[in-house]
């Protein structure tokens, strides 16, 4: 049993991991076929895993409705939403537009329910960013001052109103705020990002080697 729960998965992980690593250096067709096969396996596993996910989301909500627990109304809404989405999708053959250019029922649901809900959640970011900036942008030292000044310049440079005001008050410098913003974006920002990206890449390599070599075994779970 230990072999099936420990040795076999570790061996499979090592063999497949090494083959996927070697695949990058082999241009031959067999190597590309192998990669496609692996991608296909991932897709198949993800598909079956969704049954687990469906059970995980439906079972507790069904229990909530049965027991009329706190918030059971939301569980009814969940099932209604899933039902309507699946039904309209099946009826419209997952098409959002009919051949004549009119909206199908699925398309109507997408345009008038899904899209506004999605856009609403995303638009919350705008409000949160303003309130977070107000709370967090307190200059309490040198680095904070540098951050503050660069943020002000970037805000000026990203909007037409800012560009206009800069031209009006600082036009005598013969340097447009867009040029400064481009410089900031192309040099300091990229330098910082590249440093972080190099560190992340090395960390990813280390983590991958640990998993392939069987040093990190936590994903296997217990006995």
């Amino acid at each position, binding site marked *: 049993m230990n072999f099936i729960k420990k040795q076999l998965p570790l061996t499979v992980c090592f063999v497949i991991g090494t083959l996927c*690593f070697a695949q*990058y*250096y*082999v*241009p*031959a*067709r*067999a*190597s*590309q076929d192998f990669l496609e096969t692996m991608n296909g396996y*991932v897709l198949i*596993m*993800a598909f079956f*895993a*969704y*049954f*687990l*996910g*469906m059970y*995980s*989301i439906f079972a*507790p909500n069904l229990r909530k409705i049965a027991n009329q627990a706190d*918030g059971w109304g939301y569980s009814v809404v969940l099932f209604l939403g899933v039902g309507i989405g699946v039904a309209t999708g099946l009826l419209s053959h997952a098409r959002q537009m009919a051949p004549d250019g009119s909206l199908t029922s699925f398309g109507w649901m997408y345009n008038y329910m899904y899209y506004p*809900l*999605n856009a609403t*959640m*995303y638009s*919350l*970011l705008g409000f*949160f*960013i303003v*309130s*977070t*900036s107000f*709370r*967090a942008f307190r200059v309490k030292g040198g680095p904070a001052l540098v951050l503050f000044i660069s943020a002000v310049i970037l805000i000026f440079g990203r909007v037409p109103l800012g560009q206009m005001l800069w031209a009006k008050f600082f036009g005598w410098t013969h340097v447009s705020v867009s040029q400064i913003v481009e410089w900031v974006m192309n040099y300091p920002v990229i330098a910082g*990002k590249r440093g*972080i*990206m*190099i*560190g*992340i890449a*090395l*960390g*990813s*390599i*280390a*983590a*991958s*080697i*640990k*998993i392939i*070599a069987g*040093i*990190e075994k*936590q*994903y*296997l*779970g*217990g006995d």
Partner: protein
Amino acid sequence: MKLKITITVLLAAACLSAGMARAEVLAESAAVYPVSGLTAGDMPYDAGGFILLKWAAMPYDGLAVQYKVFSSTAQDGPWLFAGSTRSDRAYSSDIKLPFWAWTGSKNQHALPVEIAKIFPPPLSPAAAALVEKFGGHREKFTGRQNFEVESGEVRARRAYEEGINRTRYFFKVAAVSGAQSAESAVVSAVPAAAWFSLPRLNNLIYALALAFVFLWLIFHAKRKTYFLRRLAGLDAIDEAIGRATEMGRPVYYMTGRYDIDKISTIASTFILAEVAKKTARYGAQLKVPHAYPMTMAVCQEIVKQAYTEEGRPDYFREDINFFLSSDQFAYTAAADGLMARDKPAACFYAGYYYSESLLLTEVGASVGAIQIAITDAEAQLPFFFTTCDYTIMGEELYAASAYLSKDPVLVGTVRGQDLGKIFVMAAIAVGIIAVAVGTVCHWSEFVRVVLDPVTSF
């Protein structure tokens, strides 16, 4: 005097216009003869299906001359048009491969030719029969027939590609200028698949060297302990879970926007193991909402194992890990709703996040939770820094499991990361100096030798 000037000007104008007319004649055509040094060979470092034609740069190379390539499966034809190029293009130096894999120059033309574009794959017999039966109207096929035709095409394509790499193809190059044309001798080659990509040799060396360093450090870590600098965010995990236990409120742990096939999610699950051990130890309630069922399944096992190792298997519940939605904002809305109702005392955001990061952390902050972010999503760092109590960024996500477990073997790999960074920093410094010197002294080959190992992957 005026007359002399006028005559001079008129003569000059006549000479100029005659010269221009001659130049125009030259631009329209040039005297051409067959190209020399034509060879055909397999295109290196590819999966097969390409032939590389090479011939010498000719004295008549210029705007007026074009090279046309013809191909056939037989020595004597029939010849199919395989492509063309202007004579002032397609030099071997235009092929962008690193210096150890390719030597190019302006003295030689090199033109890759794709066989499948010249000789397109045929349909399989069964597929061809079906297409003929419906007069080519594939929209009349049933689903099964469509599947059969597509499968037949895939099989035919596969057989065809294997066939390409066993067939000899014949080529000739015609130099064309206006009405003049001069054909070369016929050359032939068989495409072949390469089994090693030499341009990626530098990448392989770096990867093997890193792997060797990591494994060597792991071996030595068992005999030697390495110092890890303090990471306040990870030290605060105990405090956060203790607070949750005292207040009787749950601990929320989120694994990020990616599925389990991404390394950042795997790293997040390693941290979840440590967090789960602490929640089991202190008796705090743990909740892990998931965006992907596969991640949920893996985390289920990890949390179960963690509770068992802490001797608290009875505290484990199946609904600690639960699935919400794979859609970004549906997940965020659900998680926000749960946090607003449950009012967790501690929230952990470990993994890669997109724009939902601020939405989650703002709600967490509004319910008064201690928030610890452990992420390699550099674009979201500003949001985490302003809303979370502690932020662990970048590669620290991957070092976190070593830091929390204090396992000497895992700590050894963190040292390997540091050595890798030192190597990169040294390479950047040396490279900057070398490229600057090479550029100033016009040593283009030296600059290429310095840059190719770090730009060619």
